[in-house]
């Protein structure tokens, strides 16, 4: 039966099972964890703890335009409008505990990894304090060097060992190292298939529409330790490989005229308009920094390698790495332009964005624009500004195309 599903249908099924499964687990008295998006979920999967991801949940709430009530609730408690809106949505949800968009069970424990930002440390600290539940913390020091330093790896390794003990104490279960090994293997395979699938965006035209990637991303966030996720990405990959063979582009109608990268999280409350505006001009988002962020690949049973892989993500590394990574994307995906989302929620991305933009433009000559928005707070984005910026980008990309044809570039 499952074999007949398309990857899109399978994605919808797995997503719905993910949320329903967690609700059911809670009903049955099983432990439920809330976790940050790029955390070593392998430990939780090994112990059969159902995990939901507040960032993913907040995105779902944002996309279905239900964020304002949660944001208002958090702000009434004293949370500033300046802090991450995923956090505000989640803090509000922890209080209201119901959304028309999507529901998650309340957690019995929370699991936080600082490789995406320090903001999650504060956010989860507050959750632990207000909900009176244990917090398992993974601190992954910021890599101001290109590579992850050795003393940092030793520190993270020590934390993995400590976290296992903490989880054993919380669950009362024995930690099954054979299962852990299998989960590590599956997680790496999921990451590889995710990467292989998203890499197909390199083709001309790209079979991948980047906004679909935002949707598929839900499963690499929420369930990469599961075989079903690996199989989903393999199916998605195979479907797109077939499209490549047939020379099919991202859309049923309309031609891919320009290929761009989108920098930053989606503007969830305005997903449709941000997508349609691009499509109107024949702009396809063929990649972003996210394929790389979830390429968490390491040798099975290599705890140091696992620590290194988790610590080495884009947000946790220096600008030389970040810009090198984007320059490579520009070349590998043959990009015509870049759209930078100056996302009010994400200071860690924002305050490097101008310099990244300059370096990429300097190294590749690819034009770019920045627009103001937010991942879930609908109040920041302006459709008029977005449209104007995209028009400006189209003009610059068109000029470059003409120059290329003339041989000036």
């Amino acid at each position: 039966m499952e074999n007949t599903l398309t990857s899109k249908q399978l994605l919808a099924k797995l997503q719905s099972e993910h949320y329903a499964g967690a609700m059911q687990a809670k009903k049955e008295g099983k432990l439920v964890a809330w976790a940050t998006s790029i955390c070593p979920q392998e430990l939780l999967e090994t112990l059969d703890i159902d995990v939901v991801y507040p960032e993913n949940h907040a995105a779902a709430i944002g996309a279905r335009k239900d964020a304002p009530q949660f944001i208002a609730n958090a702000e009434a408690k004293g949370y500033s409008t300046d802090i991450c809106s995923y956090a505000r949505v989640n803090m509000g949800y922890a209080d209201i505990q119901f959304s028309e968009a999507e529901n998650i069970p309340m957690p019995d424990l929370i699991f936080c990894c600082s490789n995406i930002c320090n903001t999650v440390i504060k956010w989860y600290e507050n959750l632990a304090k207000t909900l009176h539940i244990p917090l398992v913390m993974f601190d992954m020091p910021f890599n101001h060097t290109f590579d992850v330093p050795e003393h940092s790896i030793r520190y993270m390794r020590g934390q993995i060992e400590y976290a296992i003990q903490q989880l054993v104490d919380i669950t009362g279960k024995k930690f099954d190292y054979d299962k852990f090994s299998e989960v590590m293997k599956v997680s790496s395979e999921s990451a590889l298939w995710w990467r292989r699938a998203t890499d197909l965006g390199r083709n001309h035209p790209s079979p991948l529409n980047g906004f679909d990637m935002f949707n598929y991303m839900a499963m690499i966030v929420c369930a990469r330790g599961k075989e079903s996720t690996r199989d989903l990405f393999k199916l998605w990959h195979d479907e797109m490989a077939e499209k490549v063979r047939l020379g099919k582009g991202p859309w049923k109608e309309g031609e891919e005229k320009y290929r761009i990268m989108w920098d930053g999280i989606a503007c969830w409350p305005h997903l449709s308009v941000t997508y349609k505006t691009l499509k109107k001009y024949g702009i396809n988002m063929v990649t972003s920094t996210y394929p790389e962020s979830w390429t968490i690949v390491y040798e099975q049973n290599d705890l140091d390698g696992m620590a290194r892989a988790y610590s080495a993500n884009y947000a946790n590394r220096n600008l030389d790495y970040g810009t090198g990574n984007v320059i490579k994307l520009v070349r590998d995906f043959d990009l015509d332009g870049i759209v930078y989302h100056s996302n009010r929620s994400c200071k860690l991305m924002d305050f490097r964005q101008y310099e990244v933009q300059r370096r990429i433009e300097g190294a590749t000559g690819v034009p770019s624009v920045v627009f103001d928005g937010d991942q879930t707070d609908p109040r920041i984005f302006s459709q008029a500004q977005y449209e104007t910026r995209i028009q400006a980008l189209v003009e610059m990309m068109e000029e470059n195309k003409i120059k290329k044809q003339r041989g000036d570039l």
Partner: protein
Amino acid sequence: MNNAQTIIDALCEQALHPALAVAKSCRDAGKDAVGCFPIYTPEELVYAAGFLPVGMWGGSTEIKLADRYLQGFCCSIMRSNIEYGMRGTYNRLRAVLLPTLCDTLKCICENWKVAVSQLPVIPVVYPQNRSLPAGEQYLKDEFSRVRLELEKLAGHPITDEVLEKAFALYEDWRSAMREFCEAASTHPKTINAKVRHLVIKAGWFLDKAVHLEKIRALTAALKELPEEPCAVRVVATGLMAEPVGVLNLMVENGMAIVADDLAQESRQFRTPARPEGDALSRMAWRVMDQRGCPFLYEVEKTRGQMLIDLVRQYKADAVVTMLMKFCDPDEFDYPIYKAELEEAKIPHLYLEVEQQMDSFGQAGTRIQSFAEMIG
């Protein structure tokens, strides 16, 4: 009184004119200066390397150049630091140390390398899981790495003996600062909100040995004076008690700061070192033992209780939050300790501050009405 006032005047003058103060300190000590970004910068290592550690807490200045790197919704201290750096204000420094304790500081670290490339940056990464043995070891390793960087900069090794001496000096200074704060709390007129801030702030621009001597003399002079009454006694919490314009308003309204939980003030000296161990271990333990700080992970979140305890200990009437706009860690703590203060029935005043603030009308009204309500 006269002796106290002379010391106060000199320290306030130095705090208000950092460039002159730093130039004089360098001249007097025959040392080059190294900049120390906020917060918990391991100054003892800088001092032991033979440099003068200098605080870098921004300042009130027009932001032009920094806009090239930072959006307007960035912490004003960090915007000022980048602005000063690009403008060449910090060129007398040999290098800067920068702890990456929040997301903004991580970005500042990366931008600094390009925006202020003439001034080398030595990042310091603190462990957040600091109570674990692995966290302790990491911090010691990190301090050792910073020590090596500073040795390279100085062109000579930092011997254990010199480091021990530097650490001992800093412990003496921290102890003297705690004693000063005690004495200041019973003399809220002589040491009013503005004076208290400036006397402490001066320490960021002076050789700690010099500041220590002055603080000891000031504390001794204060102890000679009779205790002073005060209309409104408050505990201040946040990053720093600036802009000074806000403190002027407090003074005008009879509001004194009798204890603080400010990063630029008591947080740097409130935690004494453990008695045993070598300097590097004791430095690490000081960070591990620090409580109630928004920049250091603490699952129990004791800041609210700590503020309540301070209010009781210093017979304060209220807590004043000086929230530096766009400071995420502080903004996340606020709703938690606000609820705890409310439960303890402790009045509190929330003031949002920015270094580039040029109008104090709203703050003035809020401080005045709060003081009237309490007093």
